């Protein structure tokens, strides 16, 4: 065991309060995956380029691989595991990714959805260009992004009570 003093961390994750002592060097992504068994947030590049570890933290999108759990003390966090509707049905974004084929291998999807979730909170009716810039911190190596953009457009339309008329590519 290390001599370094552990620090207390209290978080609200997907509506549930959790409290642990952690080593200061524990990254938020490791805390979520290994302490809380929330394996939806993925580990990709580990250097803040790829965005697969993106979670919502106090209304912001953050890359949880580039933040210490201690820095998040007191925060409210939502991961992909907290995205479904209360009755277990898919949220508008999840439905959009399904309907528009916004994923192939699926590795980037939790990060994409968590990023799009905050993007739509800040800008409920984004243009295509705003969506593309809004997800510029998330890499996808399968889809070419076309259907991811459409998935987000689908969700934006649905959340505003409109039908999304376009088909997936």
């Amino acid at each position, binding site marked *: 065991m*290390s001599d*370094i*003093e552990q*620090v207390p961390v209290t978080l609200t994750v997907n509506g549930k309060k959790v409290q642990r002592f952690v*080593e*200061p*060097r524990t*990254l938020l992504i*490791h805390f979520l995956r290994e302490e809380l068994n929330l394996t939806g947030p993925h580990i990709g590049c*580990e*250097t*803040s*380029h790829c*965005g697969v570890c*993106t979670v919502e933290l106090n209304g*912001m*999108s*953050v*890359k949880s691989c*580039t*933040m*210490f759990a*201690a*820095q998040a003390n007191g925060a409210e966090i939502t991961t992909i595991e907290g995205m479904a509707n209360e009755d277990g049905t898919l949220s508008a974004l999840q439905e959009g990714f399904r309907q528009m084929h916004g994923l192939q291998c699926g590795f980037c999807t939790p990060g994409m959805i968590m*990023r799009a979730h905050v*993007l739509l909170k800040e800008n409920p009716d984004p243009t295509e260009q705003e969506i593309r*810039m*809004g997800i*510029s*911190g998330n890499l996808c190596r399968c889809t070419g992004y076309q259907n991811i953009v459409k998935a987000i457009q689908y969700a934006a339309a649905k959340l505003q009570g409109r039908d999304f008329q376009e088909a997936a590519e």
Partner: protein
Amino acid sequence: MIPGEFTYHRPSTVAEAVAILASHGDEARPLAGGHSIIPMMKLRMAAPEHLIDLSGVADLKGIREEGGAIVIGAMTTQHELIASDLLASKLPIIRETSLLIADPQIRYLGTIGGNVANGDPGNDMPALMQCLNASYKVVGPNGEREIAARDFYEAAYFTALAPEELVTAVVIPVPPAGHGFAYEKLKRKVGDYATAAAAVVLTMSGGSVSSCSVALTNVGDTPLYAAEACDILTGSTLDADTVNRAVAAAEAITRPASDGRGPAEYRTKMAGVMLRRALARAAERANG
């Protein structure tokens, strides 16, 4: 990748943060947005024994007008810079530049203080601060001092900041209403550091340039204030011959590395191209 061990500190005042810095010397590092130091720690290129998380220091937050200057707290994030109405009306070049830094997730956490104090020549804010003739408020064990951005950078990651000092705010003189501005950045992809970038702020009167300021990003081991180019441009009508001479003067002070962003000669030429574009766009935006 897991960083080395460190002791975590979370002070709530500047004085407390400086006291921790002073007692641990260069074994301690401040932690702002963390998007430079945490990757460095994971790669074991940095291994501070003490990290001082500044996010609990309320005095380091916020954007306000004081006299003829805008004062931005060091822990103000790029996301907050982009959202600020005060900056949009007085210093719109800050928003334009901030939108070209990294990506949305990083801008929620990345701070102006971290960007200017880290000394990374790839960062965009240092050249912009030189262009705007900003200065940095710095607090150390012996009190506060102000360092001009144009005097702050010594070499890559070496600055005028002592290990026990903290940048607490950036002070920017408000440019005259109707000034023209542009930040032009060439990058390989969204989120990349600049291959070359140029910041321009100018004022025009009767079709000629009454004042002009130019600085360059990532074409040397520090940001570069292009004093000679400014002198050449001031008083001119931005005619082709003058612009050519100013661009040549700016290119002459660059010392870029040859790396993944291209050979040095290319990056020097791209600094010239960015300057041309920034001048044209700034002139178009200027009143008078």
